[in-house]
């Protein structure tokens, strides 16, 4: 099954073929959502924290130029080398060059959705560089040659038996082993050796502090720290929107991030990097890759406030039942669906339609992004620009014609009721997507209009 070459709806059909697995996926992510709820409920000031985070990020969007300039100046003063990349290719080339300059062909990397967005691993592999992802979930999907299906839980689409098979093949664990403790220990040993032997380590960036010229990386496993502190060269890659004005603002974001993500009070490690250790090189790559374009779209710029907690994925009824790979984009789920059309409107035109617009995503977002409104607005833009799915355009045109004419509307109603009553097979077949997983309704004997006319006479 390769969901990645399909549009969201078709890929979701593939994912739904294994019903017990879909149910497990759905229930597990909902459980993570309930953990988030419990964590949020423990803070009486939760809603005020969300509001503060939202306003800080609004300020950041409006002051981006100066904050980045301030960050760069302070980072340089700290002995960090700052690089700028306009797009994915430049980002990949800069990192490749840094690895070459270090005179090595291997790198260890902790989680960075930006490098997924830029397809860094593919690029480096093509250029003869061996990259090992050190987050356990990312390492699992990397061995399986799959992309992550979730930005916080990269291997959430897999069962422990899948992981057991993969580790048996790649790490020589016992065949048929499924104990998570045993499998995690095997990965720990394998990656410990990696950490100890790599001279270049790449990490993502959760927050970059303009005032101090440093950056914060959050992990539970300690993998970002193990990589960075043992390497001669530490490269941190960040989208430019990761900037925050001052260190004291971290109080707001670190209180929200892990609680929103997994219901933890804070991640195990929240590491603040300000200067390279003696003898070490530290580099930051600041990436645009379409972000400045998104910043110029008033309806969509708020998507750049995202802190990548994945609360919107965990709560989304469509994500939970269609799986991350259905979104064929580095970032899945509701937030991914409003970021992806900015990267490629044609390729990602299906994603804003992968939503019921129920609004749950906006309600759990720790920085108050109006995600469901933006999904709706992207649909308008995509249809106007001619990127809408062809079937939808035809259906909408037909519907408009029918709704414009009272005569046609009444006739259509009559035909619909007749079909459901006398030849239900015309509606109840697999070619009607509304019939899949649904019972068709009992057709009423007459329309409301007919009923009204008849009763008024009586």
């Amino acid at each position, binding site marked *: 099954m390769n969901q990645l070459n399909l549009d969201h709806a078709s890929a979701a059909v593939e994912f739904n073929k294994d019903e017990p697995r879909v149910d497990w996926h759905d229930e597990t992510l909902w459980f993570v959502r309930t953990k988030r709820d419990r964590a949020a409920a423990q803070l009486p000031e939760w809603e005020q924290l969300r509001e503060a985070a939202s306003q800080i990020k609004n300020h950041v969007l409006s002051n981006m130029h100066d904050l980045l300039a301030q960050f760069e100046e302070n980072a340089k003063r700290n002995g960090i080398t700052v690089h*700028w990349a*306009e797009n994915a290719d430049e980002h990949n080339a800069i990192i490749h060059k840094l690895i070459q300059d270090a005179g090595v062909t291997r790198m260890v990397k902790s989680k960075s959705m930006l490098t997924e967005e830029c397809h860094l691993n593919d690029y480096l592999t093509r250029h003869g560089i061996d990259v090992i992802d050190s987050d356990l979930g990312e390492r699992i999907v990397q061995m399986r040659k799959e992309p992550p299906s979730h930005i916080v839980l990269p291997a959430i689409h897999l069962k422990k038996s899948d992981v057991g098979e993969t580790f048996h093949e790649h790490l020589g664990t016992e065949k048929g082993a499924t104990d*998570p403790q045993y499998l995690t220990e095997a990965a720990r040993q394998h990656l410990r050796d990696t950490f100890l032997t790599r001279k270049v380590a790449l990490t993502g960036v959760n927050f970059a502090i303009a005032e101090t010229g440093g950056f914060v990386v959050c992990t539970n496993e*300690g993998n970002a720290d*193990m990589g960075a*502190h043992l390497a001669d060269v530490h490269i941190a890659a960040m989208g430019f929107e990761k900037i925050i004005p001052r260190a*004291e603002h971290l109080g707001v974001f670190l209180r929200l991030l892990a609680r929103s993500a997994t219901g933890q009070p804070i991640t*195990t490690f*929240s590491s603040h990097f300000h200067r390279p250790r003696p003898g070490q090189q530290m580099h930051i790559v600041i990436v*645009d890759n379409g972000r400045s374009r998104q910043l110029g779209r008033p309806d969509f710029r708020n998507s750049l406030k995202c802190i990548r907690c994945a609360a919107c994925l965990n709560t989304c009824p469509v994500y939970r039942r269609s799986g991350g790979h259905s979104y064929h984009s580095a970032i899945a789920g509701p937030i991914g669906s409003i970021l992806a059309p900015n990267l490629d409107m044609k390729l990602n035109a299906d994603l804003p339609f992968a939503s019921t617009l129920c609004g749950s995503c906006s309600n759990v977002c720790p920085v108050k992004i109006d995600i469901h409104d933006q999904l709706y607005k992207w649909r308008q833009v995509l249809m106007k620009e001619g990127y809408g799915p062809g079937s939808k355009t035809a259906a909408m045109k037909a519907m408009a014609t029918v709704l414009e004419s009272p005569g046609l509307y009444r006739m259509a109603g009559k035909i619909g009721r007749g079909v459901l009553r006398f030849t239900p097979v015309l509606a109840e077949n697999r070619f009607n997507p509304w019939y899949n997983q649904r019972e068709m309704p009992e057709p009423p004997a007459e329309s409301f209009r007919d009923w009204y006319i008849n009763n008024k006479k009586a």
Partner: protein
Amino acid sequence: MTTREKILANIKANQPDLRPLPEQFTFVSTFPDLTKQFIDVLTFVGGRALVVPDYAAIRSDLETQYPNLTSVATTIPELADLADRTMVVSDPHELADLNLAIIEGPVAVAENAAIWVDETQLPQRVAPMITQYLVIVIRQSTLVPNMHDAYKRLKVDTTGFGTFICGPSKTADIEQSLVIGAHGARSLTVYLLP
């Protein structure tokens, strides 16, 4: 035009009109007992907390917890006799076989059981991650209610690196089953002195 100039020019052209920072972004947390709150949360995240009167109590608990353990290092002079090696090394790789690191935490947070450590406490940044087992000694008098209080107390760039540590390293990446001991320490014990 360099890439840098191009990106910054695009940002300047596209960013919206200036919006102010919020007036309120710090909040007050009130816990009836900071120590109890800290211990409850640390236990919840898989750590072990122990209130102790003095270093002698720490020593005796460590001797019970880790009998005959070798490759032990500490930065705390009062516990120096427990150590058989040092964390003060020029190459962090030398710590690869460290079994137990015993360090101090200058500020700890009651709301989430996070303990701040920076290079004042860490001879090598990797020490609290690379060690098999980690012990942090804090003083109850340095407990603050929440993260806002912690950042008021701290200067994050006093040294080149600092981190909040909350519990032992962990992962749930295999079918959401929690496993303690991912890449960092397999356990965290926190001793709370008066």
